[in-house]
């Protein structure tokens, strides 16, 4: 089966490593995904707060485009995934929204008939490919690598049906299939602050600090994320966050831990041949950890 790949804006900016590794995984799992023709910004969570109606129309354009291709959409970015799903629901539930959207689409010669499914890579990998098939393709098992699986908010909450909203496990199972050790991580769905870091820094920092200290306390070597914004927040502000440690107990270990996309770890294990999986784009280098675990990395 063929998928319409919807990168979303972040994967063309701070989240490039996500796209690179994702495509690598697609290739090694032989998943046929073609980029959605002339996709546009989904409106993200920002747009919703200024002009709800318009944001649905924006998202709907992408839905309609995919529908025309008769393909499921794969949306790796948490925000995109949520917005696209939400749009589908609200068009279903609210006649007014439906009218607005369909008129707007007609104006640009498109039509939305609610025939498209919005999927997340986690969902596709686990349910369409399957843990067994993936494990079979692993060439470089991530032996002894302790991973804290961080799902964040908008993948499982509130609309995802492919996993438990309170205690999701899809990523855990995928990474275990790759030979990694997934550590218990109580904050796996606690928010990272989203765009707050940009707007209300002190707030963002506190949340980031919580998440990282907890991961380190549980002995994680690396945090795996499914969302470009989470990855950005957790990786780029570790130093600032350490500065904020208010409690002697935690001041012992300053924050420093690699934060990767789960697809980077998968690509690594699947030994994606001769392609970049964006490791070099990390600000906190992963190489030392891998070296320590004797996991070969070209």
């Amino acid at each position, binding site marked *: 089966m063929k998928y319409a790949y919807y990168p979303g804006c972040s994967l063309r900016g701070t989240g490039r490593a996500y796209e690179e590794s994702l495509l690598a995984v697609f290739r090694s799992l032989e998943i046929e995904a073609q980029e959605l023709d002339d996709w546009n910004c989904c409106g993200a969570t920002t747009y919703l707060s200024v002009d709800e109606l318009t944001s649905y129309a924006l998202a709907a354009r992408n839905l309609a485009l995919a529908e025309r291709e008769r393909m499921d959409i794969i949306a790796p970015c948490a925000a995109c995934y949520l917005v696209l799903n939400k749009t589908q629901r609200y068009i279903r539930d609210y006649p007014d929204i439906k009218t607005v959207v369909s008129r707007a689409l007609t104006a640009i010669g498109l039509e939305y008939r609610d025939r498209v499914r919005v999927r997340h890579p986690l969902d596709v990998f686990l349910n369409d490919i399957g843990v067994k098939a993936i494990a079979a393709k692993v060439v470089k098992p991530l032996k002894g690598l302790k991973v804290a699986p961080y799902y964040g908010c908008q993948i499982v909450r509130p609309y995802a049906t492919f996993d438990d909203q309170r*205690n999701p496990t899809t990523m855990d199972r995928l990474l275990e299939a790759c030979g990694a050790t997934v550590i218990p991580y109580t904050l796996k769905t606690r928010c990272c602050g989203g765009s707050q870091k940009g707007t209300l820094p002190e707030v963002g920092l506190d949340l980031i600090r*919580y998440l990282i200290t907890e991961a380190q306390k549980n002995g994680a070597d690396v945090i795996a994320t499914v969302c470009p914004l989470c990855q950005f927040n957790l990786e780029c502000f570790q130093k600032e966050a350490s500065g904020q440690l208010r409690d002697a107990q935690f001041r012992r270990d300053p924050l420093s831990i690699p934060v990767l996309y789960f697809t980077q770890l998968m690509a690594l294990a699947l030994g994606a041949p001769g392609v970049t999986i964006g490791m070099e784009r990390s600000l906190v280098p992963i190489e030392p950890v891998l070296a320590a675990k004797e996991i070969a990395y070209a």
Partner: protein
Amino acid sequence: MPETRNSGNGSNGNGIRVGVYVCHCGTNIAGTIDVKAVSEYAAGVPGVVVSRDYKYMCSDPGQALIQQDVREYDLNRVVVASCSPLLHEPTFRRAIDRAGLNPFLLQMVNIREHDSWVHLDKQAATAKAKDLIRAAVRRVALHKPLQKRRVPINPNVLVVGGGIAGIHAALTLAEAGKHVYLVEREPTIGGHMAKFDKTFPTLDCAACILTPKMTTVGSHPRITLWTYSEVMKVSGYVGNYRVQVKRKPRYIIEDLCLGCQECITACVYKEGKTPDEFNLGLSKRKPVYLPFPQAVPQKVVIDPETCIEFKSRKCKKTCVEACGERQAIDFTQKETLEEIDVGAVVLATGFRSFDAARNAYYGYGRYRNVYTSLEVERLINAAGPTGGEIVLRDGKRPQAVGIVHCVGSRDANTNRWCSKVCCMYSLKLAHLIKERTGAEVYNFYIDMRTPGKGYEEFYDRLLDEGVHFVRGRVAEVSDWAARSSEEGKLIIRVEDTLAAFVRRIPVDMVVLSVGLEPQADAQAVRRMFNISCSSEGWFLERHPKLAPVSTFTEGVYIAGACQGPKDIPDSVAQAGAAAAEAMALIDSQFVELEPYTAFITEEECSGCKSCIPLCPYQAISFAEEKKRAAINEVLCKGCGTCVAACPSGSIHQNFFEDEEIFEEIEGVLAYA
């Protein structure tokens, strides 16, 4: 005196003289429906001789009014437009009966439940009332005088469920001289109450008040106690039910076992290995066991799942030796089916407590020191796994305990309803924990609900004792520390809604006050006894206020928590009521069955036999000699399925004859 109106046309030729009576029901009907206009309209309908409206038709003066008219205008048909026939049809039938009219020459029109109460538009509601009355007048004209059938009642009663409700009902009935079959699924009676330590608000010990009743049940000459048994099949009808009961093998011959428990001591297992059901897995039991010391009957049970003899057939059978010449142990025992005939049934199947694991954020099953309220009842109980010591799994005493209310209650994600008893039992647990451990005790509640005798006073007492009350629904219980001071504790995260900020409260022990749910097999039981369930799955009473223990199936009564969350006093009260209803039925000696049976006009029957397979009660037979079908009136329950199916239209149903229904249909539609 309400005004009278003589309709111009009066009797409609064929001697039919109808009186129409429109009830105001105070403002219940008159508030929405223009009753004057309606009765005026009725007066003009062909066949109507007199039409009146009155404040309360069901009142004595109201009934007198009808009876007087019946004589004065010599009416031979009556239409009463008031509430649902299920409420007052009997009343008015009696009324016209006393006036010398056959009770079945009455037709009721439901203009309250089906009209005034459900519509806002007065015009539309009034129009609807007129339509319905017109139809009733046309229908009643065709009514024929009918007689109710009288069937004798079997004086025995079946009580299902041996919790406090079932026990109380059984005793009440037995004391009144009825023979009772008490069927309990578990190996002992006692139900949930037997697991409790103290009872609120008086704090008297549950065992002390329950066990005497249990032993009386066990020894009562008029009670047949079948534990470890389940009802499989129910047939028949009010006064004459036939019930099939499955008796599971306990591999002990009950009559021979003395309950000396020597077999238990002798068992080849030196220590128990199986989680003890009665202690909710907080302790272990052997394959041969007595559920708990005061169990009734005092007969041990052998669990074939864990008994070596059943696994390998090579056990030393030290238990058999211990039992000696009594020879009460029988490994070959098979399950048996018993058939009993009873006149009435009391269902007291109780409730099941909410599975705390369903709320992932409270960490039940993930953190060892998160308990359910029922588990804590066992911890506190002197006969429990810790001998009444309130200790954590590591044997330490908790310094701080958090009691989380409304777990699985008042929550659209699990159960919407309020479980009614949790606030009070949480207070009780809070008191006992405080008293025995001196720990800091926190109650996290949404609303404190303490309606009941002495309940609010008990709440005051707890406030005195310095127990903390934080108003807010707990969001999560986690072991994740945000401060070093929280390390190694369970942290409860909650908004203190009265202080209006979020708090993190570290404790050693968390008690989840789980709500009450319908039994897992409530639906199956309901089907078996042909009664209804509320949308939540509780057994449905016939009327929420006026028939709280009756069901829509005559002769089947409900008591205790199977009808909805209830505390002990309420359950007992209801059990008494149910028992009384059953007695009232039995002592009336005869049931009167509605005469709505089907009958065949032989000459019209073509003998096609198509009706015969349709009847679920095998009431229809085929008279070979006459080549005609025949209906056994005693077996017929009057559903009318065969009537609707008869190709030659030779089957008719009393009170629901085709013509009568056609008149009604055409009546409601034929508006001017």
